């Protein structure tokens, strides 16, 4: 009769010891997210690489060790687990942190110059080069003065 409670206490002790031994594991697992398979991990990595860390803005969410980045990685992971699509997760983040969180800005009125500006500059540049080349071609016999002209620059 007396041994039963003592036995129970002993078992409790063993259980507590096991829990205590497992605690560091739980702590280590905080950022090593519990992916269920390789595909899920790859999707997570791919998604967080497209997102900017707000604190250190030259780092992606995947690379940053900032505290907020850790929280946001956790958030992204949980939303993935809830079955949200990449687009939905991005919408969640842009609703709070604006398009700034996306490394790929969306194409719309305000970002038109950003997307097509370089192309426009390239076109203008090639038009100028084309004109110069054609003019030089036309004045081929007097190529010598043109080259001294170049040295003046």
């Amino acid at each position, binding site marked *: 009769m007396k041994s039963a409670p003592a036995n129970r206490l002993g078992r409790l002790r063993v259980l507590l010891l096991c829990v205590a031994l497992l605690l560091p594991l739980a702590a280590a697992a905080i950022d090593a997210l519990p992916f269920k398979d390789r595909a899920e991990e790859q999707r997570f990595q791919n998604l967080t690489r497209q997102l900017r860390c707000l*604190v250190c803005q030259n780092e992606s969410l995947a690379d940053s060790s900032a505290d907020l980045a850790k929280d946001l990685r956790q958030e992204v992971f949980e939303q993935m687990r809830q079955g949200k699509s990449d687009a939905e997760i991005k919408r969640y983040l842009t609703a709070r*942190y*604006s398009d*700034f969180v996306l490394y790929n800005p969306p194409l719309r009125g305000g970002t038109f110059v950003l997307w097509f500006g370089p192309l426009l500059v390239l076109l203008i540049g090639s038009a*100028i080069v084309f004109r110069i080349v054609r003019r030089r071609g036309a004045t081929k016999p007097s190529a010598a003065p043109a080259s001294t*002209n170049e040295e003046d620059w």
Partner: protein
Amino acid sequence: MNTRFLPLAGFALVAILLGFGIAWMRGNSMNEVPSPLIGKPAPAFDLPRLDDPQQRLSNADFSGKPYLLNVFASWCFACRDEHPLLMAEAKQLDIPVIGFNYKDDPADAKRWLSRFGDPYSVVIADRDGRTAIDFGVYGAPESFLVDANGIIRYKRIGAITPEVMAFEIKPRLKAMQGAGG
């Protein structure tokens, strides 16, 4: 057209572009993420009070009156810079100034407030930073001016300076009180 001046024109173009960039950077900090929440309702929150965690406060507790939500933490250096200003001016604003204790140890936060003074009407604690994400907080200090209808009217990223208080917060508050009565 004389092609001789083309490089000069090109140089001038680049100079204008860079000059424009510098001028723009002066007015707009590159580190400031524009908040998409301005003009939108403040995100729903339901957080425990720092001094009495049993009691929770939500948006409903502050509706009908403008308020200033100030994100701070005991670990945040810039919060100490803005602290004297809040101590001096918070009471005169005549609106609730709510302290939003961000990812902080409650004991540390209480010690910080008792050491430097408590300028807040009430302090709510967001230990895990979940609500802060909804507010688009990415650092401390940050401050949100919310109107009587619960719409965010203004966000300050970084410490509130005397200039920000005088030229950004107070005029907006005056306009709100003039309109809302």
